[in-house]
């Protein structure tokens, strides 16, 4: 195990490298870069939840002055694929094509127009004549598999490209089932057992910047796509697939982007601007309206039945988790999100018997996709609320209960082996594990069980709740990140990474890692990221992978470059390489001699043994070391209005080494705020015809600063030997805490268990009333 070393720049909260230019409003976003003569696209969308197109007349739109191209199912080739931005072959079903003759949800694509102005494009949409045959629609996931249910994907060419269960004729997108030990026996034999159902709802990512993309035909027959994406390389591949072009004709650039949270791990609009640009021979830009953004991708609503058993002494015995996940009209991320319910939640504790089984079903609702937490959010809610229930039933303190049962360093869980990205996973032993420290430090900081309690008759009642969490760091044996570094004559370096900074600060922390290895200041590392022509490959920003995976690629590349520099210096100084090290922008010899990097750069480019100092490195991993976290919340429940105020929140997280503590804390704060919104306020509501009732910030509220408590973040450093400088991941885990921590705190306050999120005042009052009636 490589020991912890003292570091200079890693572990320091250096300023975000793009912070100043963003704060100054520099034109860095996609829409800032529209070329002259750029056309504007708009999309005609289905207002039916389920319908077959009988006739589509686009001629009046095509004839409108200023309209350059109109696309629809009649004039765009049918290429079945997935919109999910995942590695190929994708675990998501190929159930989508650019335009289909069937409409499967309110908001599905009917046609797209490119015109001289956005207004003209909108006007053109109004001229398109659509006639449909309406079909029965399935909105409720529980009805998707009822006998005689309408088949949402009845097209014969829908298929999967990896060997997994896919039965669209039963509206079944995916099915998973594994068992270790004998769960039924374990549940029956134990001292106490629990059987509860939980449900989570639709929610939207609500990034500041909606999806937007610009496609420009280049003179050499290629196409340049500038897009607000988390997955530039998958965009290149999937757009090429849609256009039936070779990948070589497409270049994808990700500029600065205004948030993604998973919504942009999706090739959602790039195919449209690409087709429109090719048809019109002109640059085409499309930005989704906020209403469209609300209906772009959502979190998978889930229904979870969780059964557990435990001994009287508080040893966990058996667990049986059964999930029904609603993927909406298309199956993107359906399988992998549900696998994460098991793989990111069940290994947290030691179980004798484990069963995890899940169905993912199609409905005619909004399309679910990747959303920060990726299934772990929903499953952690069920698990951590039930853990609380168990602890209380046994009379054990919930913190103690977790300390007693959590997975330890050096241990493994059969779940790692059993559950992967659809198929089998990769066995791993837990390396670094700071969960016990997280629990103890957070409990202390929070004052767990030492807080004054209000009397139970008061109108305002306070309660405390907590939860434990784990996530992963990248997808083992699937994800790949690469980096290249070259040295310039002034001792600066170009760091090229495929990794995708979506506002998270990954450009900054990757530069920190390079600067650390090369012994230079941050200013000497010039980062270029996410340009498929220039930068090496990277799967993109998802699965909490960038720091752990791409960071290690950067470290490897920088190490190779450092070796080359020392070799050049050794030649100049006439000393053996092993006597030389890099520090403070110099190569320093043991005897005190030194050479500046500028001197070495100039020598290598202009003077002696001329050679470009530089290197490529790639990284894949055999493990996905989990970050761990413990969350504590205090709430005040107004038993008259049902309003829940979060008074205090402490989140301790073991993310290995925090490369940049300020950015790591920011990720946790953001994730907790995001999770509090999901727990208390946010919910996409549909009407009986599948239309969004609150697809606007007027009705769909996310927490404002007034709604948030002070979120106290504790970084608990551990050293993950397989990660760069001991780092794991931090970006997703935090969103999983608020649902269970708040639910448990509400129970502590008022004695009602809420198992259906979100915990709105309406629900809380109803639950209080029901409890009152029961007790009287």
């Amino acid at each position: 195990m490589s020991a912890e070393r003292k570091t200079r720049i890693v572990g320091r909260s250096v300023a975000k490298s793009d912070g100043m230019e963003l704060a100054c409003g520099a034109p860095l976003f996609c829409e800032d870069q529209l070329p002259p003569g750029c056309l504007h696209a708009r999309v005609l969308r289905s207002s039916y939840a389920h319908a077959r197109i009988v006739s589509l007349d686009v001629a009046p739109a095509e004839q409108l002055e200023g309209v350059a191209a109109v696309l629809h199912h009649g004039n765009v080739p049918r290429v079945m694929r997935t919109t999910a931005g995942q590695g190929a072959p994708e675990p998501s079903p190929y159930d989508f094509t650019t335009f289909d003759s069937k409409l499967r949800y309110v908001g599905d694509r009917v046609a797209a127009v490119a015109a001289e102005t956005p207004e003209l494009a909108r006007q053109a949409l109004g001229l398109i004549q659509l006639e449909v045959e309406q079909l029965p629609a399935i909105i409720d996931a529980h009805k998707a598999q009822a006998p005689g249910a309408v088949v949402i994907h009845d097209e014969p060419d829908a298929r999967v490209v990896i060997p997994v269960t896919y039965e669209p004729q039963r509206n079944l997108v995916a099915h998973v089932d594994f068992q270790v030990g004998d769960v039924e026996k374990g549940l029956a034999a134990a001292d106490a057992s629990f059987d509860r159902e939980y449900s989570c709802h639709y929610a939207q990512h609500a990034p500041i910047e909606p999806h937007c993309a610009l496609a420009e035909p280049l003179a050499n027959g290629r196409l340049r796509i500038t897009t607000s994406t988390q997955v530039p390389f998958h965009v290149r591949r999937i757009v090429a697939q849609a256009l039936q072009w070779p990948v070589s004709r497409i270049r994808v650039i990700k500029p600065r982007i205004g948030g993604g949270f998973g919504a942009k791990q999706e090739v959602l609009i790039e195919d449209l601007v690409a087709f429109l640009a090719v048809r019109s021979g002109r640059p085409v830009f499309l930005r989704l309206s906020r209403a469209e953004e609300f209906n772009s991708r959502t979190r998978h609503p889930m229904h979870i039945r969780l059964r557990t058993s435990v001994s009287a002494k508080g040893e966990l015995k058996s667990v049986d988790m059964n999930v029904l996940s609603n993927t909406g009209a298309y199956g993107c991320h359906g399988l992998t999100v549900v696998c994460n319910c098991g793989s990111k939640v069940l290994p947290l504790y030691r179980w004798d018997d484990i069963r995890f089984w899940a169905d993912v079903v199609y409905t005619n609702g909004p399309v679910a996709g990747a959303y920060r937490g990726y299934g772990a959010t929903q499953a952690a809610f069920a698990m951590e609320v039930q853990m609380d229930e168990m602890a209380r039933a046994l009379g054990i303190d919930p913190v103690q209960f977790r300390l007693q049962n959590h997975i330890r360093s050096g241990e493994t869980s059969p779940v790692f082996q059993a559950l992967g990205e659809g198929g089998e996973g990769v066995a791993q032993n837990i390396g670094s594990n700071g969960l016990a420290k997280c629990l103890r430090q957070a409990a202390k900081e929070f004052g767990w069980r030492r807080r004054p309690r209000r009397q139970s008759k008061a109108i305002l009642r306070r309660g405390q709740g907590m939860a434990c969490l784990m996530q992963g760091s990248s997808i083992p044996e699937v994800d790949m990140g690469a980096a290249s570094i070259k040295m310039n004559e002034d001792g600066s370096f170009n760091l090229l990474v495929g990794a995708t900074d979506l506002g998270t600060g990954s450009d900054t922390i990757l530069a920190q890692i390079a600067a650390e290895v090369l012994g230079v200041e941050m200013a000497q590392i010039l980062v270029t990221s996410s340009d498929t022509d220039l930068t090496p490959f990277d799967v993109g920003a998802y699965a909490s992978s960038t720091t752990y995976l791409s960071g290690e690629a950067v470290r490897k590349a920088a190490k190779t470059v450092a070796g080359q520099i020392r070799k050049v210096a050794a030649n100049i100084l006439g000393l053996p390489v092993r006597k030389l090290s890099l520090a403070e922008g110099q190569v320093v010899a043991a005897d005190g001699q030194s050479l500046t990097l500028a001197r070495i750069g100039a020598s290598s480019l202009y003077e002696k043994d001329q050679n470009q100092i530089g290197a490529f490195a790639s990284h894949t991993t055999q493990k996905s070391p989990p970050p761990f976290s413990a969350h504590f919340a205090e709430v005040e429940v107004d038993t008259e209005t049902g309003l829940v105020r979060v008074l205090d929140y402490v989140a301790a997280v073991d993310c290995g080494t925090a490369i940049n503590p300020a950015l790591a804390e920011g990720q946790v704060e953001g994730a907790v705020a995001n999770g509090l919104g999901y727990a208390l306020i946010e919910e996409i509501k549909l009407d009986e015809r599948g239309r969004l009732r609150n697809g606007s910030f007027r009705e769909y509220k996310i927490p404002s600063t007034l709604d948030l408590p002070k979120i106290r973040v504790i970084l608990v450093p551990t050293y993950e030997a397989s990660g760069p400088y001991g780092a794991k991941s931090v970006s997703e885990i935090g969103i999983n805490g608020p649902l269970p921590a708040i639910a448990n705190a509400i129970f502590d306050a008022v004695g009602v268990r809420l198992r259906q999120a979100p915990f709105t005042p309406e629900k809380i009052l109803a639950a209080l009333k029901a409890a009152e009636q029961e007790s009287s």
Partner: protein
Amino acid sequence: MLRILRLPALDQVIEILSAQESETLLMAGGTDILPRPAALASTRLLIDLSQVAELQGIALDAEGRIRIGAAVTHQEIVDHPLIQRKAQLLSMACSSIGSVQIRNLGTIGGNLANASPAADSLPALVCLAAEVALASPRGIRFLPVSAFILGPGRTARAADELIESVRIPVVTGRRVAFFKKAGQRRGMCCAKASVAMCAHRHGDGRLTKPRVAMGAVAATVISVPAAERVLADRVLTMAVIEEAAAACCEAAQAIDDIRSTASYRRHVVGALLTEGLAEIYDHMQDLARRQARRRRRRS
């Protein structure tokens, strides 16, 4: 093409309005209009009232009423000493509107003219017996707020009229007041339900001339005479509070919509009234204790 006219004087606005040009829209802060592109799409002329001299200012009028110019912003109302002293309820209500940014733009005239059932200033204005001054070529006429507001988005304003100001009678004596609002979150959101209350407080603990009004539980802001009758001339006790709260729940004609449910709204107006009255009750108990202490010291 949309023309925007920023006019400095009231008679200029009246002149244009009386020309009866259709497709003319008044705008003050724009916080209701601008987020609604549909409303603007059919508009040819937008008259910006924000700089009209006669629509500014907070002062006493000739009859000794508080006059608030229609283009006065919510933040000005919140901060104004006269309002804080003599119409504190309005200051409380306006402080719950939107956020600082919205309060710096949005006006009392806009809140009235927009006539949203959930508008926050309206329950306060109804409790304060405020009148709306409407200006037209025919001069100025006054309407009580409850007569001005006809329905969601509907008012008694004629096409050639504009709101010139709001007038609030000044009452003397010790007053109590509160404005309570239940929303989806704490800031920047419309009320699921709101309750405003004000009354005279007497030395003996009685409340007189109580006024209670509620927002977002009917097609318009409504006053609650039944609750007022419960409170009038009574010393506040928990039993009285409960009775008044029940009257509020009873009076609510709430509906289900995207923000909440009818049953929650009906329940929560009672809870909000209870919360506000309980605070007043606590305050009065405090006062009574302090008085008693003072008396003891003196004797």
